[in-house]
């Protein structure tokens, strides 16, 4: 299993758990591919062993939550289908 991280735009206490959501996750496996990002449909849990994947949570300004969470990756999603609509 790889280790992942993801950014959330809410306070940690408000983390949406056990519901499918589409988010960007980053692969933290060391090497040239570290931090490669991908869209995925996932379920998150603050319980570090509820799901098979380990995921670290970062808040909107990059603050790391210092205890790991767990994640179930339902499916990876092609970047093009998720990137419609935008603003700068």
């Amino acid at each position, binding site marked *: 299993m790889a280790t992942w991280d993801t950014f959330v735009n809410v306070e940690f206490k408000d983390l949406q758990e056990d519901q499918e959501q589409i988010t*960007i996750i980053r692969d933290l496996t060391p090497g*040239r591919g*570290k931090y*490669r990002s*991908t869209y995925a449909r996932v379920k998150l849990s603050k319980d570090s062993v509820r799901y098979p994947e380990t995921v670290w949570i970062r808040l909107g*300004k990059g603050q*790391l939550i210092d205890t790991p969470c767990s994640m179930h990756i339902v499916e990876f999603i092609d970047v093009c289908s*998720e990137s419609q*609509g935008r603003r*700068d």
Partner: protein
Amino acid sequence: MGYKYYKDNRAYIDALLATGDAVTVSQEVDWDLEMGAIVRRVCERKAPAPYFKRIKDYPDFEAIGAPIATYRRLAIAFGLDPATPIPEIASEYLARTSSTPVKPKVVDKKGAPCKEVILLEDDANLLSLPAPMVHDGDAGRYIGTWHVIVAKDLDTPLVNWGMYRQMLFNEKTMVGPVLPFSDMGKIFWNKYVPRNTPMPFATVINPDPLSAIAGCAPATLPEDQFTGMLMGEPIELVKCETNDLCVPAHAEIVIEGEVLPNVGIEEGPFGEYTGYRTSPREKRTVYRVKAITMRSKPIMAVSNMGVPTDEGQLLRSFSLALEMQRMLKDQGIPITGVYMLPESTHHLVVVGVKPIYANIATQIGQLVFGSKLGPWFHMVLVVDDQTDIYNKDEVIHALSTKCHPVTGIRVTEHGVGSPMNPFVSTDERRYGKAPKVVFDCLFPYSWPVSEVPVKVSFNSVYPKNIREKVLSNWHSYGFKE
């Protein structure tokens, strides 16, 4: 015959090493935070630029950090003595860029070192480049921190070079903000997006130093011609592999592709030039990569934005102030000079002026905030012609003694601002709005001469013969300095 300058980054690094303004780092460093941490500390200590010879996971690359993060290195980039004072570097910049635009020269691929390695299709893989993880907590590896992005208007020959941060998303994708009031933003949002047409781009990593300076400058003419003015002769460009854009032939790495209209990927947070991670994580502009070309043993560039002073802060302050000076003089305002403090992360500009009529400070504020330079700063401090604008002690003294807390501070609401402003509200940040303020550090024009306070300093209250006597006897009094 051009001015003295460095045709490529390698000759520039040699010059920095020769004067002690760069150091060679021979031990292996990790692209994952270690390089960034070194460069950050270099910026905060104004230390020499680190020239990294060995990068973990990327044995075929080298890297240079903080390439122009000090005025010494800026002077060297202009071919000047590293000890050249700031006003003299400014004069050199203004003299070179007041001449006739110099059109670039397109050279054959054989004469272009940036074509020594050409990677197309699947081989053009962004993960093959040592993009640094600059700060812990950034949203990704930022491949574009010291670079120019080349783009072209859809309807005219207008070419733009600009420095817009780019985050590596995956093998073929980069993402970053292209703010609508920026030069590339105006081209992209005004022309390509409404027609749903991809915009060709070329990201030029580690060009020669003068091209990078031109990319940072708010120039009013195409930056390839502006670079030629800085060089005093045409810059050599070469055509891209997959589009019609031309890029500096002596650059280290070139990434070619298309900017996609009407799509966005979440980007940020990122440690920004203000010294904070501020701008929200939002869907930003997407770059799809088609080709990578580079020199053999290419040299990556690592700029590390954060608390002062990095090269973005220094160069942006330098060129914003001088373009402002040019604009104010063109308008006939009797200014004595303009200096933007890099320590203010190019938010505060000091304007020296001969106060020959009332409300001249307000007029200066309206002109500079209303110009295309306006979105990038929000504080204008106007001092008189007796104040040395480059001397922070004198400027702080003028601010704290001459600026009336009620009548001397003029606030303008509803200005255009950057979403990276740390102090603005969430709404202002989201829509690029910011208030502006003028600090009028001039005694009111209406005061009679008898009422104007007299400055008490060595230079202002002693007769000339006394000052000359004191100066000539200074050492004999027993003072060493």
